[in-house]
């Protein structure tokens, strides 16, 4: 079995498989978002990073920018985390308005109501992704309740890095950006896969290929 905490190497083919699996999840999430806001959504191809836990902040960047992060834990046979990063810009304000019907003032910090709208967006998108993952991989996955935090992006990512560091020296990060038609980029979606889950995911994709 692949153990990437010992060995940073996953080969091209395996990385491509993981990327494809994430892509399925991300496109389901974007479909859900598109239905939610009744607009077309552009999704980027997942960017994949295999990095030391200490390097996560650098990879994700924008350390000092204050953002709102929605975190959901993936529980079950292939654990991991899903994090949505909402920058405090016009697009996020518009997203909240589109869903809630209330105006959001960009000059103010997000209210509790605004945050709960974002949490709900996180829930719906994660639900869509996980259902897709479960179906495709044929594994049981559950999502935790969502948690929200507004703070510097670097501090948020480092806190996640610490959680990952408990079990592994290496983190597997997938980054996807959503763009609502005609708006700036918003939000970003990160999947952090527990290194122990990579073998589960790769094994079930391998089974799929063999059975075809």
């Amino acid at each position, binding site marked *: 079995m692949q153990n990437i905490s010992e060995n940073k190497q996953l080969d091209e083919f395996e990385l491509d498989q993981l990327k494809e699996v994430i892509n399925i999840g991300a496109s389901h999430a974007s479909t859900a978002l598109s239905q939610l806001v009744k607009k077309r959504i552009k999704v980027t191809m997942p960017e994949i990073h295999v990095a030391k836990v200490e390097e996560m*902040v650098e990879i994700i960047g924008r*350390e000092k920018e*204050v953002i709102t992060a929605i975190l959901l834990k993936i529980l079950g046979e292939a654990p991991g985390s899903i994090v949505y990063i909402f920058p405090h810009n016009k697009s996020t304000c518009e997203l909240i308005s589109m869903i809630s019907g209330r105006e959001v003032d960009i000059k103010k910090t997000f209210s509790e109501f605004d945050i709960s709208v974002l949490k709900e967006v996180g829930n719906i998108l994660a639900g869509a992704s996980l259902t897709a993952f479960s179906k495709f991989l044929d594994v049981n996955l559950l999502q935790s309740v969502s948690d929200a935090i507004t703070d*510097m992006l670097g*501090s*948020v990512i480092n806190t996640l890095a*610490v959680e990952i*560091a408990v079990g592994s020296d290496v983190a597997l990060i997938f980054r996807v950006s959503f763009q609502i038609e005609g708006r700036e980029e918003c939000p970003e979606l990160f999947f952090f896969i527990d290194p122990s889950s990579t073998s589960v995911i790769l094994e079930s994709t391998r089974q799929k290929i063999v059975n075809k």
Partner: protein
Amino acid sequence: MQEKISIKVGEIAYGKGNVKISTDSIGSCIVVCLYDKVNHIGGMLHAMLPINSANKKEDIIKKNPGEKNKMYTKYVVSGIDLLYKKLLELGAEKQAIKAKLVGGAAMFKSLIDDEHAIGNKNIEAARQKLGELGVAIKSEDTGGNIGRTAEFFIANAVLNVNTKI
């Protein structure tokens, strides 16, 4: 002229005289500043976890040969040991070494119960290790649920902690 060193998580930096060490993105990790005010010697450690529980191999030496005054560890206990020894090597006096702590927040409160609050464990580990070494903690800006950035001036042991929320 002031020398400026910026460290990331998992790094240690130290120096003598007019040196400023800064670090960003402090969450549940912990930043330990050790200093000897009399001799103007000090350093900073930005650690992620209390101890190397799995006894994994640590890469404590310089990763980039061009970089001076830096070491690497993710762990609080070994990091404090390394930094403390380095300060003594630079000429600090044992009795004069003091500490300041920053960080150890519990940022995602609803998902992590007390048992799993690594921030808290990091603070405890630092306090205990400093206690063993007989280093007094002069100030603490720890716990809570927010992120911080820190700048430490070795010449006068001034520590600036910044929050954005």
